[in-house]
């Protein structure tokens, strides 16, 4: 593996990490706020917006999504799009499934694992 490969895969890892962190943090924030439909009945649309924008986790998730966007731009300027897009999209599906199990305590049963694997493989092929 030469220096360019190390740099490319380092950037892919950074995209996958920041994207997964963004997804998990936003999911945690939304879990904590609860069902928007029920909340809106109680406090109106303004109350829902206030709850979201006051959530520290949500703001953190936006920060990680921005990092993910910029590292993806860097990766695309460095390596082929046919490698970067399928690799980041497919790997993010799998890391999200693992992170959801350990950080969101979701019940990732066999059905969801199979779905994640199918979608990751499918996205890798579609993005080429």
């Amino acid at each position, binding site marked *: 593996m030469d220096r360019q490969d190390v740099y490319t895969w380092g950037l892919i890892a950074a995209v996958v990490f920041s994207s997964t962190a963004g997804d998990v943090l936003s999911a945690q924030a939304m879990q904590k706020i609860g069902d928007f439909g029920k909340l809106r009945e109680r406090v109106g649309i303004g109350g829902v917006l206030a709850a979201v924008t006051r959530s520290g986790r*949500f703001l953190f998730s936006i920060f990680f999504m921005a990092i993910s966007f910029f590292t993806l731009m860097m990766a695309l*300027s460095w390596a082929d799009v046919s490698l970067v897009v399928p690799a980041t999209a497919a790997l993010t*599906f799998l890391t999200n499934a693992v992170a*959801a199990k350990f950080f*969101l305590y979701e019940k990732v049963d066999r059905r969801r694992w199979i779905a994640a694997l*199918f*979608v990751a493989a*499918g996205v890798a092929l*579609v*993005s080429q």
Partner: protein
Amino acid sequence: MSRRKYYVLALVVLFGSFGNVLMSVGMRRSQSEGVSIHNLGHLITAFANPWVIGGTLLLIGFLVTYMTALSWADLTYVLPATSISYILIALLGQFMLGEHITGMRWLGIALVTGGVGFVARGRAHTTQRERMEEAERRSRD
């Protein structure tokens, strides 16, 4: 799951797909005017492009509906269930941008469809009680 929730998932797919396609069209048109990673100043002028403005508005709609879906469904349900947008983007790319869908891409589309079918049959949400039990089990281990 109620019909309203399926509508929200459908909106996630539609906003995400059309938003990305409009952004792609806008950025390609701006590219001829010299936007690149080495010339980030021109990126600001790209935001004056009506396609980019439309794409940005749709992607904001995507973020709102995606967060709404996460407020009542698990991340491991929402992500595969809305991955049908990859198929829609491929089809829009073919019909709107004249891109070619190869045999490998059709295979990919079949796999994504299979994955979506798998997860859509299951439950959308792991209950709070199940989460608490899982957290307790982990703290004991």
